[in-house]
């Protein structure tokens, strides 16, 4: 073996060589006085460097106790995380949304949401499969008591707002898990009735929570939406699921196979928020949890109706998948109604 180079020597002292490498180095050192000398120099250097670093250590204070339940998602900085981490930030938003909303969506969530949903702007990259998995795992926990299958969808001609009630009732079992958070989402998305960003966000969350719903037929999907759901033409449809968008009468999630490894989801929602009165009479909100939102927030929906939004047949659309935002946007442009 030739002489041991400096890097190898440091790795040797650091105990970071494999067993075979360690043996090789040791064998050479045993028969090479020059390298043994360098070994001692390297040891001294490492000791000195460690000593210097210790001088520049922070005052050693005990770690505060760790209480996971108390930790709130950070309110600042995260959107500045460089690109490789932005998908994680997106997931953070989705997962932590209850907490965020509890403190007011308008101040924190909005800029983010605008980025995430406006297809004309560069979008936050879609969660990677791993991230999706995280979302789903969490949702699975949250939805442990399975809600009964959604009752038959209302006729398309019915006004959208009252139609939301049976659906919401069907979700009661689920709501009991986290009533406060869900109500916060509800109230806030209503408060923002005119703002499609929040609306879509709500649909997004609801979409993921529907991960375990049973599949429905295309006819049921049509009934649910009151119109033809949108799909990317030419791609095989894997399954159609009903989604529960909070405050919306119908959301349909269609999974389409892009290639052997890639599934995209097209989320079509009938955009028609329910008034708050419907929500409370449907028994979703506990009185105290609603009161906890404060009078100001609870009043907001009544003060800010969005008639154009209520009447418009506007669909909310979302294409999701483990693809770059560009690719998803391109797919989105291909969307066509799925005609019978």
């Amino acid at each position, binding site marked *: 073996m030739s002489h041991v180079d400096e890097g190898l020597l440091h790795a040797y002292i650091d105990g970071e060589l494999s067993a075979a490498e360690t043996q090789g180095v040791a064998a050479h050192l045993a028969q090479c006085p020059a390298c043994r000398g360098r070994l001692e120099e390297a040891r001294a250097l490492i000791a*000195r460097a460690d000593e*210097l670093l210790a001088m520049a250590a*922070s005052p050693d*204070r005990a770690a505060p106790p*760790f209480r*996971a339940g108390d930790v709130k998602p950070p309110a600042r900085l*995260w959107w500045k995380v460089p690109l490789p981490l932005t998908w994680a930030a997106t997931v953070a938003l989705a997962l932590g949304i209850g907490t965020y909303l509890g403190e007011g969506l308008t101040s924190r969530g909005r800029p983010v949401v605008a980025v995430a949903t406006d297809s004309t702007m560069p979008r936050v990259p879609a969660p990677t499969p*791993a991230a999706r998995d995280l979302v789903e795992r969490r949702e699975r926990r949250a939805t442990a008591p399975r809600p009964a299958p959604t009752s038959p969808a209302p006729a398309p001609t019915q006004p959208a707002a009252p139609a939301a009630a049976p659906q919401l009732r069907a979700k009661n079992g689920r709501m009991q898990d986290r009533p406060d958070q869900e109500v916060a989402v509800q109230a806030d998305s209503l408060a923002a009735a005119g703002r499609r960003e929040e609306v879509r966000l709500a649909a997004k969350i609801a979409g993921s929570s529907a991960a375990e719903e049973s599949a429905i037929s295309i006819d049921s999907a049509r009934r649910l939406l009151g119109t033809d759901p949108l799909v990317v033409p030419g791609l095989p449809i894997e399954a159609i699921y009903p989604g529960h968008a909070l405050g919306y009468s119908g959301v349909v999630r269609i999974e389409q196979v892009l290639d052997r490894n890639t599934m995209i989801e097209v989320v079509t929602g009938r955009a028609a928020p329910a008034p708050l009165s419907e929500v409370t009479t449907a028994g979703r909100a506990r009185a105290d949890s609603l009161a906890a939102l404060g009078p100001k927030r609870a009043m907001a929906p009544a003060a800010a109706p969005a008639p154009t939004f209520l009447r418009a047949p506007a669909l909310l659309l979302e294409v999701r998948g483990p693809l770059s935002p560009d690719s998803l946007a391109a797919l989105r442009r291909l969307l066509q109604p799925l005609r019978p």
Partner: protein
Amino acid sequence: MPQDLADVYRTTYRALVRFLYRKVWDAERAEDLAQEAFARAVVHKPENARGWLFIVAANMARDEARRAVRERRHLTLLTAEPQESTPASDHALEAESDRTRVRAALEALSPRDREVLLLWDAGLSYDEIAAQTGLARGAIGTTLSRARRRLVEAFEAGKSGKHVARG
């Protein structure tokens, strides 16, 4: 999962503060950032929490540094002025000036050498450092040896008032 994170917290929190402190040079800020990193971990539940935490921490510290530059908050590094306005003990003064000198020496390193050195000092393995910095695992020893040598050299040079060029 939360239990795992609690374990990671116990074993990694102080290392993370140590790592961050050498980047932001403010104990409280370092602790804040470390807590923030853990708060994010609670939300994200990353698979490799430890590595993830250091990546997030490094990003946050970089962000801090950029802002510091923007705000023209340049500190005179080599003047070894005590920061306390109250009279400090000799011992504290000495510790402070040592700290300032080490800081200056660290900042004389190339960013990559410094990063590797600080990650190693925070207790990360070669594998973890390689994963975080994108360096080949085999290059870590060489990088570390160079970083250590330059740190010691820069520190000694600073002590005798000379300036050691970066590179």
